[in-house]
């Protein structure tokens, strides 16, 4: 029996090392890849300050860092909602929070002047509004994860329709920008777009780390969570706010990037072989997935850079079908 423990510890070490290697590798690849290929040697020289390159430092680096940080944030947001609903389908993109945050973005673009602070605030408010609607509609009687997911899917469809309507009514130029945005893309992000969302994500992730134990305790079910000392109401509210905040912070810059939040927590959980749906594997897997998907998006039809949302949706769609058939079999 004790023989199992070193093996489990060994596995965790190997997987952590693999994640770090993958993230560094994909990051480096992202810095090398572009309209013209830069050798890894050159990239390292630029990063250490030995050489200078505007392309690498001002164009590629923010995109790569955004891919990794946003991927991690989406992974964590997914893990939060999957824990909250105790259902692998309960992720912010499936239950309409991405769409709601995007509605906020559209509002800021069409009605307000569309500064980055307005976009961030509006997307958070949009996400919160949709989460409140989903929660209220699904909270008749006892809290049920599955019901929340099903209602969330319906709300997602409606909010998506509203988004299309807003785009149709918008002026042509705004509409073109908005449609480009709707696929979710890291094309053309620069440092100026990133400070606010990075700061928000950093604070939220730190806050969530402090709640991680309580979140795992809550996965014992409502009764046992309460009788072992979890203040469930406060925890749920905090988790919703953090999950919506992470989703909205990403969406305000990139537009909705679907399926990272859905897939990352489950893939991470299986790789690590952990109990429940832990946050760290979700964050690492999310970073790898989004950065990997963004590289694919740039390379597939090069020199035309696809929006990463198209790639993540194509891959994630297959994953969703697989997960849904499993869910149906389980029910």
């Amino acid at each position, binding site marked *: 029996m004790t023989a199992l423990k070193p093996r489990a510890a060994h596995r965790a070490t190997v997987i952590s090392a693999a994640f770090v290697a993958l993230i560094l590798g994909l990051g480096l690849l992202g810095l090398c890849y572009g309209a013209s290929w830069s050798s890894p040697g050159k990239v390292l020289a630029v990063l250490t300050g030995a050489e200078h390159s505007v392309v690498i430092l001002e164009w590629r680096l923010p995109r790569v860092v955004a891919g990794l940080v946003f991927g991690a944030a989406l992974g964590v947001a997914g893990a939060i909602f999957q824990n909250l609903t105790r259902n692998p389908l309960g992720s912010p993109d499936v239950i309409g929070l991405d769409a709601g945050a995007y509605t906020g973005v559209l509002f800021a673009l069409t009605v307000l002047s569309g500064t980055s602070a307005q976009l961030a605030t509006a997307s958070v408010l949009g996400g919160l509004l949709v989460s409140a609607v989903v929660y209220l509609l699904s909270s008749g009687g006892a809290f049920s994860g599955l019901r929340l997911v099903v209602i969330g899917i319906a709300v997602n469809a409606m909010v998506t329709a509203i988004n299309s309507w807003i785009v149709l009514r918008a002026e042509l130029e705004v509409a073109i920008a908005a449609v480009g945005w709707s696929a979710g893309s890291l094309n053309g992000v620069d440092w100026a777009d990133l400070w606010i969302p990075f700061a928000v994500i950093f604070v939220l992730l730190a806050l969530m780390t402090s709640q991680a134990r309580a979140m795992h305790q809550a996965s014992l079910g409502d009764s046992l969570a309460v009788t072992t000392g979890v203040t469930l109401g406060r925890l749920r509210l905090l988790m919703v706010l953090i999950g919506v905040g992470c989703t909205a912070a990403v969406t305000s810059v990139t537009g909705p990037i679907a399926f990272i939040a859905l897939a990352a927590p489950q893939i991470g959980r299986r790789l690590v072989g952990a*109990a429940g749906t832990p946050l760290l594997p979700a964050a690492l897997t999310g970073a790898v997935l989004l950065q990997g998907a963004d590289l694919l998006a740039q390379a597939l039809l090069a020199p035309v850079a696809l929006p990463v949302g198209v790639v993540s949706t194509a891959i994630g769609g297959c994953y969703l079908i697989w997960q849904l058939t499993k869910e149906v079999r389980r029910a």
Partner: protein
Amino acid sequence: MTTSLTAQGVTLRYGDRVVSTRLNLGIPDGAFTAIVGPNACGKSTLLRAFVRLLRPDAGQVELDGREVGGYPSKALARRLGFLPQDPLPPEDIKVRQLVARGRFPHQSLLAVRSPQDKEAVDKAMTAAGVTDLADRLVRELSGGQRQRVWIAMVLAQETPYLLLDEPTSFLDITHQYQLLGLLARLRGEGRTVITVLHDINQACRFADHLVAMRDGRVVAEGNPSDIVDATLIKDVFDLPSVIVPDPVTGTPMVVPTLEEE
């Protein structure tokens, strides 16, 4: 007989349905209390009110003279341990990890596991007889093993009170008696055990204090040998019966005389 855990004039409601009105009950300290009664008589509801999962519409539930609603969550969780009827383990959790979840009320926000935690988990697993299963996945266990793991989790909570909602429901008869034996042993070690039971004969055999409920009211309470007779069984369960002494323990044994139709 001192009673530190009490329900005083509580009115309990489940949704729109009023289950109990102005119910009074004191749980004797250090005793094995069994609550029995027909289905939907309010046994589980009462248990949930004791552990603050249900807030009474009127009246109060008190522990040591203080309303349970007034305790901080973790402080109450260090006094009252509860096992619901059909708990669902988190995915892919191992036995030791699940038992360790019982330590939550003893840990602060970020604290790593302390030596006391490890000791409490070891002790709980030994007491519940699941030490051999420590590294097994909970979902791969049999019903009887799984129930013992849940008991170990509540034991690791190290609470002076153990409240269990029909802990024997999904067990075969051998495991039922093993589990009740375990609870009796824990009571012998000084814990107060309160359990909802379906089987009146098991309740009479193991409990020092029997609470018979019907329609949300306490019909009778006391030592099983003092209160169980054919009239009580008729009043509580609508079941004609004769009461004979249990050939093994001498406690009252209910033998129904209901004729087959």
